[in-house]
């Protein structure tokens, strides 16, 4: 096969890929966008948020876990997928306690940005109002589990980029929760430091820096004016303690 160009159709556009790449990798490399929350190009694949579902023939497949194949016909911007993604977002909002008006990440939050883009106005699912524990024991990083979407990005970033093992997910189903791997279960007892990737990649406001928040005025934050499908999933340095952005 060497020398042959491999490509698949993505909403009618030809996307080139190298052997072993997922649909997601190939599309992002080609400058396109597929909605996602648990995927990050520097990390192993988790495949849990399901927002990156695309239609291949008659099947719905998650773009981050499906290898690209030559001649594939992939559909992304179609109304049935928009409706499915909207429902997924509404479930994520209903499952946690997402009070955007008081959240440090508001305006820079990827969950919120996807909801804005898909035109979500409310959740059609009963709001759960779960009781979850917050953790303010760390000197610089605050953990608010109310906003956690169990995407496991911090878990993977800690293990794969930081060479540590600060976070894990425990429990099953609706009881799944972010757990801290320390004797007392507190963030302050771990070896997490502010420069760690795991502290700077949270797509929502679950892991936030204690200092320097609300530095931007409303209407001047990233997703106030930019659509996420055009900018990609980003967490600006201004909400990550001023440390450089770990971009996609």
């Amino acid at each position, binding site marked *: 096969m060497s020398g042959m160009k491999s490509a698949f159709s993505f909403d009618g556009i030809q996307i080139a890929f190298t052997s072993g790449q997922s649909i997601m990798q190939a599309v992002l490399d080609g400058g396109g966008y597929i909605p996602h929350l648990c995927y990050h190009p520097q990390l192993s694949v988790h495949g849990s948020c399901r927002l990156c579902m695309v239609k291949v023939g008659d099947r719905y497949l998650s773009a981050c876990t499906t290898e690209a194949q030559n001649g594939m016909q992939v559909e992304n911007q179609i109304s049935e997928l928009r409706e499915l993604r909207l429902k997924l977002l509404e479930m994520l909002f209903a499952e946690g306690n997402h009070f955007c008006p008081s959240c440090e990440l508001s305006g820079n939050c990827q969950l919120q940005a996807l909801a804005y883009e898909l035109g979500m*106005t409310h959740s059609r699912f009963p*709001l759960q109002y779960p009781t979850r524990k917050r953790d303010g024991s760390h000197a610089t990083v605050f953990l608010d589990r109310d906003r956690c979407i169990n995407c496991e990005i911090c878990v993977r970033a800690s293990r794969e980029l930081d060479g540590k093992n600060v976070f894990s997910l425990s429990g099953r189903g609706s009881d799944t929760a972010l757990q801290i791997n320390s004797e007392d279960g507190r963030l302050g007892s771990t070896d997490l430091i502010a420069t760690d990737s795991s502290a700077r990649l949270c797509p929502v406001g679950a892991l936030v820096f204690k200092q320097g928040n609300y530095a931007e005025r409303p209407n001047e934050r990233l997703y106030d004016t930019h659509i996420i499908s055009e900018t990609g999933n980003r967490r600006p340095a201004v909400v990550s303690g001023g440390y450089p952005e770990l971009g996609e």
Partner: protein
Amino acid sequence: MAREEHKLRLATCSLAGCFGCHMSFLDIDEWLFELDKFFTFDRSPFTDIKTLENADVGLIEGGLCNQENIEVLLDFRKNCKLLVSVGACAINGGVPALRNGFPVEDCLLEVYQNGVGLQGTVIPSGKELPSLLPKVLPVHELVKVDYFLPGCPPPAEAFIELLCAIRDNRAPEIAYEHRRFD
């Protein structure tokens, strides 16, 4: 007040809200003159009218935190052809729903008895005081809601689009820059 029959009757209220959405509504500024061509205010804090009958549109700010909120909301649903949830509190409980993680009794004890400087005070009670619900709820958990206007508060432009859409008998299309959850 004489009824202006050719105009749509617009009612508004604030349940468990802060009136910030009403203030944002007033940010439409001179568009109030445009609004006056098509709408007339019914029961609303703007008019101080206390009763409601046969309104066309009801804007609900705030979620449900007590029995009186439920009464008012049911009255609005019964008497408004279209009901709109306005703002974060009406849509997901908002800041008042931060109490949902605590039993109501604990909240009352903290506010009236255990807080700093509150020794010897009592928890207010009486038939005239509406009792608190165990949890603050969004409006659409109790009644059917026709449209939702997110934001804390929704920007004035979103109110204008909502009212234009209702005037023109179509669904509102809020522009990206006016979609706000905060």
